[in-house]
């Protein structure tokens, strides 16, 4: 079976604020947004600066600094991207769950996906895997 090239965590609603929160002085975790490239493009998980934010609704809060924590269903924490672990994503995840008996990636022999699944089972959110074409891999 093909290996995912990206591992994302779509935060559960009760953890969205903590996982995707912007920190002081502009600190921001690695996030991707479910959005389209152009009006007819299919929705994909894309880095924030690649999403076409064009909207006819001027009141849409798309540019707000706290977009992630206000829209957790369409924002995901990046744990791995292009086959590489993203340390800032794991840092945020482990800081949010410091008291929980969950594995740390550095000390987990099963790899990033298995480690992410442990956080999923603990109720922190839903793991989404992306293939080389950028599409979700539902069966991984």
């Amino acid at each position: 079976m093909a290996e995912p090239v990206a591992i994302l965590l779509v935060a559960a609603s009760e953890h969205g604020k903590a996982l995707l929160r912007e920190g002081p002085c502009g600190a921001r975790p690695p996030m991707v947004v479910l959005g389209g490239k152009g009006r007819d493009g299919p929705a994909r998980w894309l880095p924030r600066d690649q999403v076409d934010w064009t909207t006819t609704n001027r009141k849409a809060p798309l540019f707000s600094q706290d977009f992630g924590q206000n829209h957790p269903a369409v924002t995901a924490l990046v744990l791995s991207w292009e086959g590489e672990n993203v340390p800032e994503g794991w840092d945020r995840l482990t800081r949010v769950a410091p008291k929980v008996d969950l594995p740390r990636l550095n000390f987990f022999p099963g790899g990033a996906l298995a480690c992410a699944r442990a956080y999923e089972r603990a109720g922190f959110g839903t793991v989404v895997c992306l293939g080389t074409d950028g599409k979700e891999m539902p069966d991984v």
Partner: protein
Amino acid sequence: MSDPVAILLVPSPEHVEALLGERPYGSRPPRVECRSVAGTARCPHCKSKLRYSPAPTEQTSDLWVCDACKEDWYEEGIFALSEHRWEPFYGHRLQPNRCALVLAGENQLVFDGLDRVVRHFEKKAQAAGSEREEHNCLFVAALIHRARFVDLCNESGGVSASLRQLGSLILVDLEGREVGL
């Protein structure tokens, strides 16, 4: 003298990108910038007080306008002629000695900033030329990972000494003014 409430690390030029740079997917550390205070900046030509004009977009720069000379100045041109404060930085252009990483604020550790330092030492360990150097970097990374607020304030402690390998540490008060220990 005001009490310090925040601890900043001003990286040496070679560490600026690693410690302050934005990562893919918009990830960025807590950053501040040393800026001229509105009302204290003066025109280098006629010494009149300058009017602050914020940049219209993130890609352009703020301007300081002299209404007497009808000249516009960038921050660099008037920096030496004004009072300064450290303020949150949301821009893109990192300037050595003018931008800093926030390690602690409001008398608490800022983990997003400390994690960036820890990861930097871990990367240095991976690129180390000797086993001893690798161990040193990993030891420092572990030390900073477990640091408490008092460890950062202790000027002669191991944590502060390790952080000074990357740049200079400064303390600022609630209004962003640099203060001594």
